[in-house]
């Protein structure tokens, strides 16, 4: 069961982060909040994904079997790349259009 969690946590975390950033952008634009919030969300997503990756690599939280360990670390790396690839534009693109 724990191994299953190790395998699906990285990408589920990316999915949750994606939904959160998406929702935050909509609320931010509607309320007229500053885009710095979105960049903060991006930073938080990186921090959370890094924490998961470090946890999966540690002896305390990482898997004991070679297959699960390597697979979960690979998925953790994919999750991190996905965060960087899909969220990075919030730093340099315009988030809102004034109506």
């Amino acid at each position: 069961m724990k191994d299953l969690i190790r395998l699906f946590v990285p990408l589920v975390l990316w999915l949750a982060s994606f939904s959160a950033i998406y929702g935050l952008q909509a609320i931010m634009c509607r309320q007229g909040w500053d885009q710095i919030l979105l960049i903060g969300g991006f930073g938080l997503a990186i921090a959370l994904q890094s924490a998961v990756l470090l946890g999966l690599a540690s002896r305390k939280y990482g898997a004991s079997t070679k297959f699960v360990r390597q697979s979960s670390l690979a998925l953790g790396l994919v999750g991190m790349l996905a965060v960087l690839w899909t969220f990075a534009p919030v730093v340099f693109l315009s988030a809102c259009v004034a109506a």
Partner: protein
Amino acid sequence: MSFSILTLLLLSGCTQNLSIVHPAGPAAATIATLWWVLLVGAAAIFVLVMVLLLLAFRVRNANDSSDQEHERRWIVGLGLAFPVTVLTALLAYGLVIGEHLMPRAVPELVTVGAEARQWAWRFTYADMPSFETDGVLHIPAGKPIDVQITSVDVIHSFWVPRLAGKLDAIPGHVNVLRIEADLPGEYDGVSAEFSGAGYRMHDFTVVAHDAESWSAFIAGETP
């Protein structure tokens, strides 16, 4: 190659009225360029892959370790590095275009409203607050126009293919689309979101005026 020829043949059936490859304004020209880049790029990559596939049938099986190492380089190079490079370049290009199309504050900006309903369009004009037109949107040629798009019932989509991309008309929300016509003339527009039985006839016309005609229109004279 056959894909490209087929595409060109199919395109020959397009009339210019609703054609994205016959742009009549800066936003539409930017989108048309993207379209051509994607078409030519996709065709070139398709030809490359087909040639490699044909060559693969002519190469003997990999038996020793040096051949396997050679194959690995091909897989990493063309199987991973090449798609990642192409997708990264396309993403960057798309993002730059997206920023370019944003309706930013510019001098001489004209603002109009587009209100969709099943199955008609009503247009309003910031320069003439009490005036509205049904089915025909009047704009000045050569000036940037912000169209404030909304809907009173279901979701529709405002699309004048020769002037700009499409943007949804959403009930209770205003979306802003920047359009511009290089020259005076009439440009066809359609709703690009299915909205029920009358969807097929849910169209409108954009009339771009020259300076003199636009002044007369704003003054309330018959265009």
